[in-house]
């Protein structure tokens, strides 16, 4: 077993023993969703109109919340040093870490989102679009987020900096993800938006690991 | 000259406020952009000169 697969396995075990790691984003997701009817308007018609956007914004923020810890522990306890010492490609390692991150943040969000969307009175036709847009979109959030997390891993109180660095990069995904759900809800075609998300996923899967690998090396020079 | 009088030039139809506000802010930003590196440079020179004086003093004492 190579170090990459061993690391994936190890991180999944750690997540299983630290349920907070994947439960916190979910709780956050639920809480943000609950805020909108309370703060704006609980009228079902109004909720169903904003549901697509709100669910997507909440999912994005929940992912952001979980990103800060992505590389921090590995930098601080010397794990990163061992990755580099092993001679295995940091590119593969970055992909592995992102995969684990998606498994414990994006995947649960995708699975739970349709349930919570019920509370937001999402139109019936939009559930498939919600599920597929999140399925394609959340891995991109993890990939782009990993760049920011790697860049700020060595910075004390890097959480706010991470949001500043990452949020502008998230805009296209938010726009297309939310619009796919919205258009499905009013009975329009949404394959185009999903197509955009899919192609963006391919691009970011090939390119971001380079940036993550480069950024991780910066944390070694300390 | 497009305008007939100076007062008209200042008034810019009904849009004088917006136009002059824009040009004023722009002037401020440009001036700030020019002054910032000049001040930065001055500070750098003063700071390094002070360091050099201290080094010289330490060298003569030792």
């Amino acid at each position, binding site marked *: 077993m190579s170090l990459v697969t061993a690391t994936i396995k190890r991180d999944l075990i750690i997540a299983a023993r630290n349920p907070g790691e994947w439960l916190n984003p979910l709780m956050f997701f639920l809480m943000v969703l609950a805020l909108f009817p309370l703060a704006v308007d609980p009228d079902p018609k109004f909720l169903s109109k904003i549901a697509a956007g709100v669910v997507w914004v909440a999912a994005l923020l929940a992912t952001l919340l979980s990103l800060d810890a992505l590389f921090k522990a590995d930098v601080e306890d010397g794990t990163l040093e061992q990755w580099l010492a092993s001679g295995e490609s940091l590119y593969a390692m970055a992909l592995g870490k992102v995969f684990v991150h998606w498994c414990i943040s994006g995947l649960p969000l995708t699975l739970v989102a349709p349930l919570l969307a019920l509370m937001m009175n999402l139109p019936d036709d939009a559930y498939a679009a919600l599920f597929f847009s999140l399925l394609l979109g959340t891995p991109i959030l993890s990939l*782009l987020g990993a*760049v920011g997390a790697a*860049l*700020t891993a*060595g*910075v004390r109180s*890097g959480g706010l*900096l991470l949001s*500043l*660095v*990452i*949020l*502008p*990069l998230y*805009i*296209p995904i938010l*726009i*297309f993800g939310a*619009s796919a759900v919205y258009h499905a809800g009013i009975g329009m075609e949404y394959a185009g938006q999903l197509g*955009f998300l899919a192609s*963006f996923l391919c691009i970011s899967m090939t*390119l*971001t690991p380079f*940036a993550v690998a*480069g*950024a991780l090396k*910066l944390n070694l*020079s*300390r | *000259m*497009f*305008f007939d009088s100076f007062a008209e*030039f200042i008034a*810019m*139809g*009904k*849009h*004088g406020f*917006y*136009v002059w*506000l*824009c*040009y004023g*802010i*722009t002037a401020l*930003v*440009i001036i*700030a*952009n*020019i002054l*910032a*590196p*000049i001040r*930065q*440079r001055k500070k*750098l*020179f003063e700071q*390094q*000169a002070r360091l*050099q004086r201290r080094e010289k003093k330490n060298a003569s004492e030792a």
Partner: protein
Amino acid sequence: MWEALKRLYHRMGSPKWFYEISARWLPWFAIPAALCLIVGTVWGLAFAPADYQQGNSFRIIYIHVPAAILAQGAYAMMAIAGGIFLIWRMKMAAWVAAAIAPIGASFCFLALITGAIWGKPTWGTWWVWDARLTSMLLLLFLYFGVMALQKAMETDDTSAKAGAILSLVGLVNIPIIKYSVEWWNTLHQPATLKLTEESTMAMEMLIPLLIMIVGFYLLFATLIFMRTRNEVLWHERKKSWVKKLIEAEK
């Protein structure tokens, strides 16, 4: 030709050479910049005719458009300089990138604020989620991200590298962001009046605009020179040529 370029490249890598040559070049940028800006402003404010639709508020174009063009160009330049630093380890490139960031951010801020002020007489509100303004706002966030990241890093080397990586990631993203924002905008507001109409612009209106664009570019170059010179002095402060320079100043 190729040889000459190569020689220039290697000399550009030498901070001392840059510091000396830039002192001689600086007036050749600064003076034309001032001339262009003054001529362009006077022409644009006093001599160009008013727009038949927007009236005199249209004169804001003479700063809004050049600032917007430069804000985007500056980001690309910063990212390319960062890339040169990452690939060829040329320190000068990192210093140029660090010098560009605050200048680009301030032009971006200018484009935003003039756009908002222009919006009031044109649309009736200070802020409209127009495609150009929105993508300008996101560009400003990108600048802030790069600057904050550079500041947060502990050593000169890591801050330069981190800034370079982030600005390259941002550069790849800018077209995607722009495209998505424009698409989103046409979807939600099909009939907005655009701030700037590219196609039909009278000659008397266009010429001062071109003069202003040239002026802004020259100003930008001047500011980069000034800031990069400071970066050179700071990073080379322990070298003997800088020490001599500082001694001579007193």
